[in-house]
Each structure stands twice: as structure tokens, then as C-alpha cells.
């Protein structure tokens, strides 16, 4: 094969035209496919990033800064993807074998290229890493300038959340469950504990999660920003985010953000003696006889009381740590954020909680449940419901 001009022209013609004239995969149809895929992705991104539990919809500085970091990463990922994937696709197309093509030059490597694509990514990654570490430390605690930080202890249980305020305001102790009330524009320090298995405390719109690990006392902080929230009171969904057993999917909680005045009013009214009708009084009797060893309705739970319930549970007794039901009627939901609070749902829950929350410890340990069914009379159950909806 000599290098005659004609020979070169012929070889050039061979190498620059495809045998099928490029009909099967012309550049234009590939570009259209690329556009179509991008359009779908754009639609997905836009359509799916609003939501009451979306990390793309932050309502406070912690989730906001975490999202900012994620957005930087997304840009880096997209640019890297387009560049590297683009080169890959280009190589796959450009260097397809032409019919009868000879063995290509047997290149073994390129030292300057190897150095470049080792050193440059290392520098970029180190820069990213240093920035990440700086942000990490900044996010670790509420700003020092905050003059008041509300402290709450959240304890994970199978399958509900306990919230204890050592000092909700004015020295008042509050124990509640599954609904966390906080004032707006106030940093909240949440201590995280568990008495059974590992759970995780996650309010996507307010802060990334931290796990609740038995024997550990973890912590996170968040703050709800009034300029990110349209109207108050506002509710944010929280969910357990560490697999914790049968009803992990049903272990949710709500964070109710309120104006400072409304929050103070709530604190003041917590634990006030409810006014009960006759039926309610009857219900209170039934409740005290059957439910109060696990559920408290008269105010905060003392630590020793909860420890006793945990020990009894582990010993296999007819007892378990259970949600504090003080002021239950002021809550939106029951059964850890999965059912609206109303009489019908309360009835369904009390009659057969296992249907709603498989594996729940109430129907497993409370003696008046046989095979998951409530053996108390309908009259007693109605009375208890009357009592519960009077708790405010």
C-alpha cells in the first residue's frame, strides 16, 4: 500500500464516510434523543422538588445550607458527567471500526496525560474537601450570636417519638409525643436518645438527620425561618430514617412552628386539668385501670417512671414505654403521625392497633388485648375515647 495521491484520496474517502452513509445513527437523531432525555429530566426535577417533606424545599438555615452544599455538588456532578460521558460517547462513535480498517496505532499510554488527570482532580477534590469541612464545622452548632436556644430531648421508641422539654419556658417541664412545637426564628437544640433500637430523627425541610442510638446522646440543631414560611402555625413532616423494625415506615412526627406568643400560650396551658363530662369521667376510670401504667395524661413523665417502663418491657412484662397523652386533643394526628385525630380513627386504633401498625407493643403487651383484638366492652372504649378527646 503505497502513498500515492490517489491512494490517499481513496483511503480518506473510506475513513470519512460510513458504509451506511450514517443513516442508522445520524448525528441529528442522536442530538434529538439527547434533547428528549434532558427534557424529561428537567420535568422530573421541577415537578418533584416541591413538597412538604422535600429536602429541596428548606425552611430554615440548617436545611438551607445543606441544600446549598448539595446544589454545588449537583453542578459539579452535572459538569463532570457531561464532560466525561461526552468524551466516552464521542470516543465510542468516532473510533468505531470501519470495514477493513487496519490495526490502529498500538499506543500504550501518555505520561503527561496521566499526571494531568491525577493531579488536577486531586487539587479540585482537595478544594471541595476543604470547603466541605469548613461548612461542616459552621453547621455544627447554632450561631454564637443566638441569645436563646430551646433545648428538647427526643427519644426514639418502637414506633413513636417522645419529646421532653426540660425547660419549655419559665422553667416548665413538658413531655409530649409525636408533635414537636417550637417557636419560629429560634434555634432548637435536639438531644437524641433511644431506649430500644437505633432510630433516626429527620425533618427534611429543616435539617439533615442524626441517629438516635441507645447509650449515646447525639444532638442536632435546627431553626425555622419566618421568611421561608408563608403562614404560621406551619407544620413540617418528620420521619424516622433508620430501619427500626416492622413499623419503621409508619414512624412519623410533626414539627409545629408557631409565633412566640402562641408557643408561650401552649406552654402555659400544658397539663391543665381537663374539664370532663360524665362519660369522660367514666372513661378516665377505665383509662386509669387499663392504660395509665404506660400512658401518662397528667403532665410530664418523670425519668424514673420511664426507666421503670423500659425495664418492665425488657423483662417481658405487660408494660412498655408509651406516648405521653397529656393534651392529646390539641394534636393533629395519632399513632405517630399516620392517622388524623378523630373519633373514628381513635376507635379503629384502640380496637385493633395491629391492623394499623403491625407489631406495635400495645397490642402485644397490654393484657386486655387477645390476639390483637381489644377485649374491653364497646361502652368502655367509647368512654375512653370521650376522655381522650377532652384532654386539652
Amino acid at each position, binding site marked *: 500500500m503505497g502513498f500515492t495521491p490517489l491512494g490517499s484520496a481513496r483511503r480518506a474517502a473510506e475513513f470519512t464516510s460510513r458504509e451506511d452513509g450514517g443513516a442508522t445513527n445520524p448525528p441529528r437523531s442522536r442530538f434529538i434523543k439527547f434533547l428528549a432525555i434532558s427534557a424529561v429530566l428537567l420535568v*422530573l*426535577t421541577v415537578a*418533584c*422538588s416541591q*413538597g*412538604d*417533606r*422535600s*429536602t*429541596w424545599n428548606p425552611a430554615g438555615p440548617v436545611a438551607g*445550607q445543606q441544600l446549598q*452544599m*448539595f446544589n454545588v*455538588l449537583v453542578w459539579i456532578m452535572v459538569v*463532570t*458527567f457531561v464532560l466525561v*460521558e461526552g*468524551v*466516552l460517547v464521542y*470516543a*465510542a462513535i468516532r*473510533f*468505531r471500526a470501519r470495514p477493513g480498517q487496519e*490495526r*490502529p*496505532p498500538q*499506543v*500504550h*499510554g*501518555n505520561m503527561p*496525560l*496521566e499526571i494531568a*488527570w491525577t493531579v488536577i482532580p*486531586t487539587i479540585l477534590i*482537595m478544594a471541595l*474537601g476543604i470547603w*466541605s*469541612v469548613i461548612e*461542616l464545622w459552621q453547621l455544627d452548632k447554632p450561631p454564637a450570636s443566638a441569645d436563646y436556644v430551646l433545648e428538647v430531648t427526643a427519644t426514639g421508641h418502637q414506633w413513636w417519638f417522645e419529646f421532653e422539654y426540660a425547660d419549655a419556658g419559665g422553667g416548665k417541664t413538658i413531655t409530649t409525643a409525636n408533635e414537636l412545637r417550637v417557636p419560629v426564628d429560634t434555634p432548637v437544640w435536639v438531644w437524641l436518645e433511644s431506649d*430500644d*433500637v*437505633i432510630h*433516626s430523627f429527620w425533618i427534611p425541610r429543616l435539617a*439533615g*438527620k*442524626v441517629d438516635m*442510638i*441507645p*447509650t*449515646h446522646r*447525639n444532638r442536632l440543631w435546627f431553626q425555622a425561618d419566618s421568611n421561608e414560611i408563608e403562614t404560621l402555625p406551619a407544620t413540617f*413532616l418528620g420521619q424516622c*430514617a433508620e*430501619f*427500626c*423494625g416492622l413499623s*419503621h*415506615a409508619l414512624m412519623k412526627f410533626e414539627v409545629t412552628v408557631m409565633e412566640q406568643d402562641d408557643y408561650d400560650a401552649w406552654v402555659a396551658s400544658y397539663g391543665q386539668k381537663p374539664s370532663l363530662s360524665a362519660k369522660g369521667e367514666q372513661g378516665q376510670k377505665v383509662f386509669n385501670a387499663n392504660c395509665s401504667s404506660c400512658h401518662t395524661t397528667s403532665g410530664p413523665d418523670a425519668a424514673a417512671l420511664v426507666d421503670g417502663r423500659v425495664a418492665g418491657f*425488657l423483662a417481658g412484662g405487660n408494660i412498655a414505654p408509651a406516648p405521653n397523652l397529656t393534651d392529646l386533643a390539641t394534636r393533629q394526628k395519632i399513632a405517630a403521625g399516620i392517622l388524623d385525630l378523630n373519633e373514628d380513627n381513635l376507635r379503629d386504633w384502640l380496637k385493633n392497633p395491629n391492623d394499623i401498625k*403491625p407489631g406495635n407493643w400495645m397490642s402485644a403487651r397490654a393484657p386486655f388485648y387477645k390476639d390483637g383484638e381489644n377485649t374491653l366492652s364497646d361502652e368502655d372504649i367509647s368512654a375512653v375515647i370521650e376522655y381522650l378527646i377532652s384532654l386539652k
Partner: protein
Amino acid sequence: MATLTGVLARPSGYTGVWSWITTVDHKRIGILYGFTAFAMLLIAGLEAGVMRSQLATADSELIGPGVFNQMFTMHATAMVFNVIMPLSASFFNLIVPLAIGARDVAFPRLNALSYWLFLFGTLLLHAGFLQNQAPDAGWFSYASLTEKPYSANAGLDFWALGLLVLGTSSVAAALNFTVTIINMRAPGMGLMRMPLFIWMTLITSILLILAFPVITVGLIELTMDRNFGTHFFMPQGGGDPLLWQHLFWVFGHPEVYILILPPMGVVSEVLPAFSRKPLFGYPFMVFSGIVIGIMSWAVWSHHMFTTGLGPVANSVFTITTMLIAVPTGVKIFNWIGTMWGGAIEFKTSMLFAVGFIALFIIGGLSGVSHAVAPADSQQQDTYYIVAHIHYVLFGGSLFGIFAGIYYWGPKFTGKMFGEGLGKLHFWLMFIGMNVTFFPMHFVGMNGMPRRVYTYSAESGFQLLNSLSSLGYIILFFAFVVFIINFLRSSKNGAEAGNDPWDAPGLEWSISSPPPAYNFAKIPQVLGRDHFWIVKELAREAGQGPVQAEAHVDERTIHMPSPSYWPIIIAFGVTWIAGGILTHYALSFIGGLIAFVGVVGWGNEPASAQSDH
């Protein structure tokens, strides 16, 4: 004495099932691993189908949490330990001796033992299904959920004990391949002339040897907590649940590199063959593999960013995790460099190799986003992580393995696979994989945690979940196409010949399928890509195409004799574990059987009677 020698005599002349049960031939063991692992792939894939059916609609009551939790646990556990690892082991077995010019591995009986331990360990792991007590605490089974009373049934014991048996299988195989690669390379094959797949096998084997003891400790401690009253992870009694996580992930992170390095090795073999030029930057590919292996020990707590380790630990692991992206990137660039300037033939194997790179880029990039601890606190335990896992393990490992199946399949079956069905398989799998897993990035960041058996209608997760479930159906058909292609081609495919791809490795210089003894004459290796050199020399000398090495009479080459003892020992070892679940007496009997097996192994004649 005669009776004793009779009992201990090596089996010989077996055909049929007995020849498979007593085999010590690496090629047969590779086939056993391959078929067993593929069957497990189908089972674990069906478990995924159960989950995707349940999650296709909000508030679905199709599958309850009891079953669902078993599904996600066993799907992942099986995919990791019963599918990807043994598929890699299948390749190690089939390819390593051929690619280094050896006749078998260093310890053929140990090799067989590894397979039987794998089979019996897999059966033990799954035995819980027979009593509706399959493991159900997730594939990494965090304490203290795994303790009693929170996991009161025997499921977690099946998990821990099954994995203990599987671990012995992996470590034995790893030791075997390490010695084989270091000691049994053909003359002329220095370390820097080894095919890259062999390097990846060596690094993976060293990782296996060092990582499995860590999880073994964890599994024994878990078994003791659950059955013998200890408190390693149980808070009441002074234990710490977080200790389990450290033990698991110090194993677990090297484990994920164990899952990806062999398929990376496969891709590094396939790309040069179909680009018709050598692997670009071979020394850098070797060193990046070694660096990844070393650095894999320094990143484990990125799985624990949300466990409250504190900002110092989180900072350290953020940095180390980001740094491990560098050698990974080096590999990707070198693969592209291999294709660059080549003359690429897009056979099915090559499609899967390029698909591997394309999908692994996505999985690797999402991995970099997890490395940043504050961002990770929103991603952790959501479907964003599930998306990452599947891009690297499905788009990565499994695609790489399929590239290898299509590349080396003809070597062992002697038949070419159908290219039409092969390409259909590829496109169904590529499209199906993206439809299933890409939406998961979004639904995760929108607030969907992982390991949930249901989600509410108000959550807004339904659309993307339905999309993922649709993708599953596409993947289902992809596998159907593959099975049809494999079965048809094995029966009626075109003759492959010894070198269908004009490839560089030693394995292509012998017939397809290879004779029992592999090489009649151990080759003198002339360099990296030895067979290309041989063919080039032949071309320059004006000789015709290089033929497969001619067969010789098998009886003139002594090969390791078959043995009963590996399966017997594996059976005994499995009962040591199984007895803890049933009666301790059975553990003792299992130990006795294993002991007898070891004595028999040690005392049996070095070769079968007929060889004397």
C-alpha cells in the same frame, strides 16, 4: 490396611453427577459457581420484584411489612454474598489459571471446598424462608434491632451463621488465588506483564483475607449476644450498638471494592480486545487498583456520618472519601484512553463494557456527593442512596460481569452467543436500569426513606415509584432474553474456535473449550498481551493464522485427582453453624464430620490409583 486405603482412595473414572461432586478442576468449579450464582441472581431479582410490586402504588396492601422486610434484607444479602461475589469467584476460577499459563490453582481441593462451603452457606442463609423466619433486619443488620427481644425469631441467626460459613468460603478462595497468582505464573510473566484482570483478582483476594476476619468477629459477637447471653451490642449490660457498625463497615467498605474491582478487571480485558489496541496506561491501572485497595480501609465511617461521631471524625472521613475518587477517575480516563484512536467492534461484550463505564460514572458521581457529610445527612437512609448503590452494583458490577460472560462464554462453551439477542439484552438492561433507578435519586431527595414497605398518598412519591416499578418489568424481560440466548447459543451457536475476538490473552491460544490440562506445554510468556505478540510475530514471519495449541493425550499429563473430602468437610462445617440453630449436639457432630474430613484429606493418596 487395605480397607483403610480403600476408604481413602481418590475417586477416579467418575462421570455424571459424581464427577461434579468430587471435581477439583478449576474450570468445573468455575461453572458450578457460575450456575449457582446465576440461580441466586434470579431469586434475588424476584425478591426485588415483590418489593417493586408493593411500592408501585401508595398505601398498597399487597405485601405486609413482615414479608417486605425479609425481601429487602434477603435481596441485598443475596445479591452481595450469593451473586456478585460468587460470579466474580466464577471468573477467578475459570480465567486465572488460563490467563497466567497454569494448569490449575495452587490448592485444587481447597478450591472445591470453597465452592461447597459457598453452596451450603447459601442454603443455610436461606433456610429461614422454610419457617417464614428469613432474616429481616436489613443486609447490614444494625444492632440493637438484631438483638432479642427486637428480633425474637431465628431469622438473624440464619443470617449470622450463614454468613459465617460463606466467609470461610471466601477466605479460603482468596488465599488460594493469592498463592496461585504469586507462585504459578508461566515463565516470562512478571508481575507487570500480568493481565489486568489478574491484578484485580490479586488485590481483591488480599482485601478478602483482611476484611472477612473483621465481620467474622462481629457475626460471632452477634451470635453470642443472641444465644449465649453476652452484651457486646446490647445497651442493657454495657454494650454499644455502634460497635457493630464499626465492625461491619470496616469490613463493609473494603467489601464494596471487592464487589467492583473484579468487574473493573473484566472491563480492562474487554476494552483492549474490542478496541484492538492495548490497555491505556497499564502501570497506572495497576497502581490505581492498589491505591483503591489500600484507601478502602480509610473511609468506612462515611457510612456512619449520621451516627453522631462528631465533626472531627466526619471531617476526616469526608476528606478520605473524596480522595478515593481520584484513583477511580484515573481508571475511567484510562479506559476512555483505551478506546481513543482504536478500531472499535461493538460486540455485545463491548456494549456491556462501555455501558459499565457510562453507568459507573453516574454511580461514582453520586458517591462523591455522599462524601460531603452535611449534604449526606439529607441523603443518608433515603432512596438517593439506593440509587447510588444500584448504579455502582448493577450498572457497575453486573454490567461488568455480563461483559465477561459474553467475552469468555465462547471460550468455555465453545459456541458463539447470538449477537442479535445479545444486543437486545444489553439495550433492555441499559434502558430498564435507568428507568428503574434514576428516579430514585429524586424521590429520595424528596423525602422518601429507604426500607419502607409503604408510603402515603400525600407524600407525592407515587409517580416516581411507579416509574421504578415499570423499569423492573423492562429488566425482567432483559433477563429472559439473556437466558434464551444463553440456552440457544450453548446448543446451536456457531463454533467459536480458539480465538473468536483476536484477543491478547493466553487463554485464547488454546481450544474452546480448553482441554482438561489447559496447556499441553506451559508457554514462555513474551510480554504483556502475549498472544498478540505471538500472532504479530507469526504475521511478520509470513506464517498463516496461529492455530490453537494441539491437543495431546490427557493421560500423558497428570492433573490433580478428584476428592470426596471437600464436600464432606463443607457439610460438616455447615452443621457446626446449623447446630446452633437447632441442637448443639448437631454442632458437635458437624465438627466431627469436618474433623474426619480433614484427616481423610490429609491422608488420602496424592493421586488416584489409575495414575500410578
